[in-house]
């Protein structure tokens, strides 16, 4: 097992270098000069523009940080490989650079502000997904072809088909505005933001609608995977054996079928959690949620490359680590799986 983990962690390195290098190269391809964008319609004066480019290592500078000019008085653009090396060098020291657009703020401080919101939202959404998805899947498998089964199958189809951001907007309309009108303002749910000291609701209330929206599609998938897995497992010989030796249906399902049926579900939920930690761009945008997805989206539109690079770097690491944890967890759920053994490789 130890060897397997070391091997997987070493695999992180090429994946990580590949993703960041592609992203870095893309900065040069995407149109729009981020430094010109900083000023907007009011142009920067040329010296300030030079100073900004020097600050962001876009042009070569001497030891004092003064821009180096060529014979014709133009600044010398720093080549891509050099900027990438500088970036990686900074990264090894935990320095993700400084944002272009949010004057003077370091990328790590910006991401540090945003990540807690994304993590908390993802945790609540994963809870919703796991509890509702697994329960609904179990109900529909156990009571196959009943009203409940049809209800689950139908509603999961709808949820899978429905874009999450649209569901979010419907929920906002319904719980934030229509219900409010019907109850004369007596009951409704907050529809944007994450609360604050002068907020109208308790902080927890702000999670309800975004978490449901974020969890919707994957809850549906979880329920479907759970249903099909449970049905498959229940048709297997060892379940029949368990029933034949006199165990009740409930005990068979809880003690024998469920554990095996859960393996793919846990995989799915785990990988999904990794995805949610990457920030849910659509959900966070619809709900004005101050998380890392919203920040990344805004950074892309503003060509704020340091933030894009920083958040993708973190996302790559988070997703790789979560996938590793999911793979390792197989071994605990299914004793037959043994990583790193010679048989496995053979």
């Amino acid at each position: 097992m130890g060897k397997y983990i070391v091997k997987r962690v070493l695999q992180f390195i090429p994946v990580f270098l590949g993703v960041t290098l592609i992203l870095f190269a893309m900065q040069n391809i995407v149109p729009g000069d981020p430094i010109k964008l900083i000023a907007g319609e009011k142009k920067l004066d040329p010296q300030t523009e030079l100073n900004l480019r020097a600050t962001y290592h876009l042009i070569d500078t001497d030891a004092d940080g003064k821009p180096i000019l060529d014979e014709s008085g133009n600044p010398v653009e720093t080549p891509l490989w050099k900027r990438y090396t500088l970036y990686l060098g900074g990264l090894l020291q935990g320095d993700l650079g400084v944002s272009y657009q949010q004057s003077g703020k370091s990328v790590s401080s910006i991401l540090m502000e945003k990540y807690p919101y994304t993590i908390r939202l993802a945790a609540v959404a994963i809870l919703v997904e796991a509890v509702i998805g697994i329960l609904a899947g179990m109900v529909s498998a156990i009571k196959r072809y009943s009203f409940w089964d049809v209800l689950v199958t139908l509603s999961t189809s709808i949820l899978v088909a429905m874009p999450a951001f649209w569901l979010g907007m419907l929920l906002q309309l319904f719980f934030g505005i229509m219900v409010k009108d019907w109850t004369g303002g007596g009951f409704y749910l907050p529809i944007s933001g994450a609360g604050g000291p002068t907020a109208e609701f308790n902080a927890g209330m702000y999670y309800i609608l975004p978490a449901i929206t974020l969890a919707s599609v994957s809850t549906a998938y979880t329920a479907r995977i759970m249903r099909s897995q449970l049905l498959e497992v229940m048709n297997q010989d060892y379940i029949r054996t368990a029933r034949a030796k006199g165990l009740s249906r409930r005990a068979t399902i809880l003690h024998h079928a469920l554990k095996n049926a859960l393996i793919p579900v846990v995989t799915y939920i785990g990988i999904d959690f990794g995805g949610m930690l990457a920030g849910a761009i659509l959900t966070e945008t619809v709900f004005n949620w101050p998380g890392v997805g919203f920040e990344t989206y805004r950074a892309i539109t503003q060509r704020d490359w340091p933030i894009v690079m920083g958040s993708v770097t973190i996302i790559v690491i988070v997703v790789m680590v979560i996938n590793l944890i999911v793979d390792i967890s197989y071994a605990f759920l299914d004793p037959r799986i043994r990583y790193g053994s010679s048989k496995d490789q053979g």
Partner: protein
Amino acid sequence: MHQNHAVTRRGFVAGGLASTALAALAGCGKKNAGSSEGGTGAGGTLKYYINNPVAIDPYNTQEDQGTQVEHILFDALTDYDWAKGAVVPKAAESWESNDDDTEFTFHLVKGAKFHNGDAVDAKAFKRGFERICDPDMPTPSEINYHLAPIVGYEEMLSKKAKELSGVTCPDENTLVIKLNAPMADFPTVCSHPALAPVPQAALDDPASFLKHPIGNGPFMMDGDWVADQYINVKRFDDYYGEKAKLGAINFSIQKDPTTAFREFEGGNLDMAQIPTGRFGEISEKYGKSEDGYTVTKGHQVLTGAELSVYYLAVNCEKITDATVRHAISLAINRQNICDTLFEGTRTPADSVFPKILDPGMDNSWPDCKYDKAAAQKLVDDNNLAGTEITLSYNSGGGHEDIMSIIQSDLEAVGFKVTQESQEWASYLTKLGDGSFQMGRLGWIADYPTMDNFIYPNFYSTADNNYSKYNNPAVDKAIDEARQITDEDKRKEAFRAINKTLGEDMPIIPLMFYSHNWVGSSRIEKLYLDPQSKVDFATASIQA
């Protein structure tokens, strides 16, 4: 109704169970109303909508969102009084200049304090100005051009000097500023909120100063700026001037005006922008403000003109013939654009000067109006029919609709028009390169001076001269006008320059922007000036 039903079902399936579980998890419900409205005691809390600002630290305060917060945390040397139409004292109680307006001496108000108790002395202003010019700040300031007229600016920017030699402090309360060239309008420049004093703390801990600036204004930070969430400020009780009436302000950061307006309708905001297309209905419901700038109960919709202009920059190197520019200008039905797209809230532009800049004077350009017959005549007489024109603009922001009206107006007199839209970042690059023929732009003035509309846009070497306009006579006239010390004569000189621009038409002004804000009925009085700064110090709300 049918739709409602469908929503209910889905709500039940997807949300019913989950929301029950979550509500239980969250620890239920709404806070009681009292806690949110009580604020910090007397004066009440005003809740104001902004977007996430670029900066609230004066060294880089630029757009209106950050300025809205920064200008009440910091007092600049002077202020512009719109009622008087003149510069008035603020942190400086008086000032004088030498004979040719190259040296200004400001006398600071004695005994003024920063929010942390430090004294506001002349050095604090010098410190603030030098931060703006310092290229070694975490990111160099993008608004340093305000200080470009000061001696020593270039040296500091190019790292040849560590201090701004043109700013000196003979004693604690005297600030002397030397300029490179005469500039009679300089005290108005000093009214810009970013040109503020900062305490030593700004240098000691710049990172926390970004999120929690310490100023000399009527309000102070209450906790840090929480990005994308809120900025809270409270009244500063040791303020040297008249104390604010409001107890506190909660700047609620929303991602766009539509979201903010929903919050306003829900009673969670006291000021919000009116979403496009809803002006008529909302102004009926809340009542129009009498002067367009002041919210009072029953008169809550603000429509006052702003100090800004929406225009087409014409690349004079590509459309060299002024007749073409005149014909284009005459062919555009500006009133139609204002009425159909902006419900009459914006007004057609008749020159580069918004009327509020020079009240009561006629600064209109002869051909900056809709006259289809005259346009047609120019096209016919000069054989312009079929001339190809490319209209460039940035996609989004409603510009498509404006450009489509312009396209059909121009085609109606015989021009051949193609539209070309790009998203903002690419569009700016294109404008900067000069690889455009005619492009949309907006100019929002930094200071209420005519100079600020003329110099940055039309001086041949000015950075913002996107039209590549180069008229040596105009350059000379601008240089001369800037040196005229007499207020009235200077204005007269700029009016004359404006007239010359009307003949050359390097830009085609289209509309003057105006406010589109609505206030809640809790507001007793609130004034939003033409530069979109709220006078929070005099605002009041039902506590």
